[in-house]
């Protein structure tokens, strides 16, 4: 029971290390190729398609308008570092000039969450874990509830592994998904802890079974919703968000009800023996 979630986590670790987590435009360095003063509105879809084919990287093209002249512009963002390779740059510019686009300005840009903010993000996750741990300690007054934190972090690990497998990039949307997962993961573990540690009617196993019934309904509702979103919606942001949650929630079922429940049960049975000996 305890081993299967750990084996899954180990597998996912391997995937992350082997495949790497792809980054979206928001989180990676990249290039902004910008055109100004176009008379006609450029055909965004076909430009995007051709560039994506050539670069094999994420490409986002947007038509802009200059408020002063009313002329069009085109901003192409890509995670490819175009400016680093002159040959590639010329190829791309040749492709773009076939669409009638000339004289671009090429800007390398850095991620929105750059440098010091990456450190902040890591600090943030640590502080959040600490805050969650403190809340749990405050409510349950038992050290064993602190296990919730690594359980939830395992959920996140599996979700990130799932992202590597499905090549879902880390974007604002998938980050939102990971954070949602943090919330859901904590919720089910809190439910479990309350039933096992704060209730006294019936055997601990019965209490876990009862909590599991509620917990499974909760997670299944969200999981099915996200699956529905994943299947019916083609929008990349919602697709990324739901992919993260589908993997994470499936892992949460294992981590909460097999791993954490086993440990809490063991803890509860130890306590019971203690009471009996009195």
């Amino acid at each position, binding site marked *: 029971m305890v081993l299967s979630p750990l084996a899954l986590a180990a597998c996912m670790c391997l995937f992350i290390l082997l495949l790497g987590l792809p980054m979206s435009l928001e989180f990676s360095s990249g290039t902004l190729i910008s055109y100004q003063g176009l008379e006609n509105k450029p055909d965004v879809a076909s430009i995007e398609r051709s560039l994506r084919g050539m670069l094999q990287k994420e490409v986002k093209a947007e038509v802009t*308008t200059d408020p002063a002249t009313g002329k069009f512009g085109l901003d192409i963002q890509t995670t490819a570092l175009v400016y680093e390779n002159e040959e590639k740059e010329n190829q791309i510019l040749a492709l773009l000039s076939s669409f009638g686009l000339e004289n671009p300005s090429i800007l390398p840009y850095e991620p*929105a969450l*750059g440098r010091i903010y990456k450190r902040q993000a890591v600090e943030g996750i640590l502080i959040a874990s600490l805050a969650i741990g403190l809340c749990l300690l405050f409510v349950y007054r038992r050290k064993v509830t602190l296990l919730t934190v690594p359980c939830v972090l395992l959920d996140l690990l599996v979700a990130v592994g799932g992202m590597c497998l499905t090549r879902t990039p880390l974007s604002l949307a998938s980050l939102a998904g990971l954070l949602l997962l943090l919330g859901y993961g*904590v919720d089910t573990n*809190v*439910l479990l802890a309350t039933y096992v540690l704060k209730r006294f009617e019936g055997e601990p196993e019965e209490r876990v079974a009862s909590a599991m019934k509620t917990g499974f*309904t909760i997670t299944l509702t969200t999981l*099915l919703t996200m699956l529905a979103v994943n299947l019916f919606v083609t929008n990349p942001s919602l697709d990324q968000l739901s992919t993260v949650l589908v993997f994470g929630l499936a892992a949460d079922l294992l981590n909460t009800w097999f791993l954490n429940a086993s440990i809490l049960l063991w803890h509860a049975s130890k306590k019971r023996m203690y009471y009996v000996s009195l």
Partner: protein
Amino acid sequence: MSLYRNSRIVLLVSLTLLALLGIWQPWRGLSFEFRGITTGLDLAGGSRVVIRLETTQAIIRFAQPFDERLNSVKEMRDHLADALLSDVKVLDVNTGTREVKVEIGTAVNETVLGGLVENFGELLSISKGAVSSATMDEVATTLLNRIDPTGLLGVQARPAGTDLLLFEIPAMEPEKAKTLIEKEGKLEAFIENTLVLRGVDIEIIYSVRVSSTQRGYQYEVPLRISADGARRFAESSQGKAGYPLVIYLDRPVDALLVFDRGLLGRLTKAGPPYPLVTDYSEGRRQFYAKIDETHGFYLLVHALPIDPRNPGENDISLIQEFRKTKSRCIVLGDNSIFSPQTLELLDNLFDNRVELLPQGTMEISDWIFKGCGMQSAPRIMESIAGKEEREVEITGTRSTEAEATREANELRNVLSQRLTTKTAIVSTTFIPPRLGSEFAREIKRAAFAAVIAIMAVLFVRYRDPAITLLILTTMGCELILTVGAAAAIRQTMGMAEIGGVLAVIGTGVEHQIIITDEVLKGRIQEYRPRGIRGRIGRAFLTILTAALTTVAAMFMLLFIGFGAMKGFAIVTILGVLIAVLITRPAYGEIINYIFRRRLEKAGSSG
């Protein structure tokens, strides 16, 4: 007690209706649109502004070894800051080679800088277009505070290239974004030609005041200045009662003001109204303005009259002479006054750094004042001349009250968020919404699929249409309340915020299932130590703990990555609070009522 009289349910229903009204805003039109919600960049479009940071980095080798406390370095830094009227940062000090790397918040050329540091040592190298990451982050944060002081708009900032910053601002016109970003916020106050106050002297900026006067609406931005500033004011204003204290904001010292020679004939020689530009000095190449019949001041920006259609050789050679010290050009007028050839000539001379300032509806004096960055020129009263006055006011007059209030608030905003580096706008464009009607259709489809999925799970679990319907209705109320609350605090709704709403709904359903299970268990099991109300109370322990931990986890997000995830965190925290305080208690009451009724019925029939 009847459900309709239960305070928790009444609260839920009335707040939901209120939120619905807030989102819909039917008084602005009866068609069903979400008028109360400001949508993000993805959904509503916005502005993309690229700015360039005009810093200069230089390495200076000191002639003498450094003293222990590096006083000579500090002295040089202050000397440069005073001489260049700019912020100067020391980036690196190498005591072995006696080299110091500094970053100056403005463009400086080698000759000027070499001259300024010669008392300290030798200028080894100078580079433009390189900006330290500390300065880049500082400027990004300052500008974010200006554009989006509450952080609710969801502005994104990212460094691009070595010296550029790219801003994406949802639901804001490019022109407005430009005015907020463009101003450096560099305040200077002169008495005659002596600089008495600078931006760093400002200690407090009080609330703005707007009052109606004969010329229109006058705004006042009161400031408190430092004791040092007050002392300088006292020294310089000694015996200068009646003289003007001329206050500039972002005085374009690095620019040459070019204007049509014909303008000189149109200057009015006497007022009122004052202040008034009355003259131009060929010797000083500066405009002269009066604040009353006896006192006046020179506008401390070099200005040059030329023939706008066909500048003569003399004009060109004068411009070339100025080009040695000036890096850009401000043209008073537009292409209706200046010929394309003239503008092209200026463009070539100033490397495309020419800015047009059309007169628009402004009076000639106001137009010239604007070109010179002159904000106001109050008269030094007899009572404060030579005294250490710490309260100063910047004033301005506009034709409408709304315009005066807007400008005063902008001024206050810019002064309190002063930039340490000079910036120039590279481009301002409008980005249309990325996710248009297709996205709206997809969201609807997703919502429909989600509701069906939730309904299916709930029905399979409880086999009770009443409970399924109740959970779904409560979920709907929670959605409306959360979106309504976000709209009320003017939170922009973008992708991240939609994620937050999803989180809220998800946890909402979760908590209702916990309550329902708790109540049902009491009904099914024989062992029933408490009543239904007691069981609901017990469910609340789980819910409150879960809510508390979610809020704790979200709180840290408020401070990450130029606020990129702030919206998500705010919406989630709002939703969790609403859930715990409003919807959960009401749901508990309703489920309590339903089961009590059922038990009573079962009891009476049994």
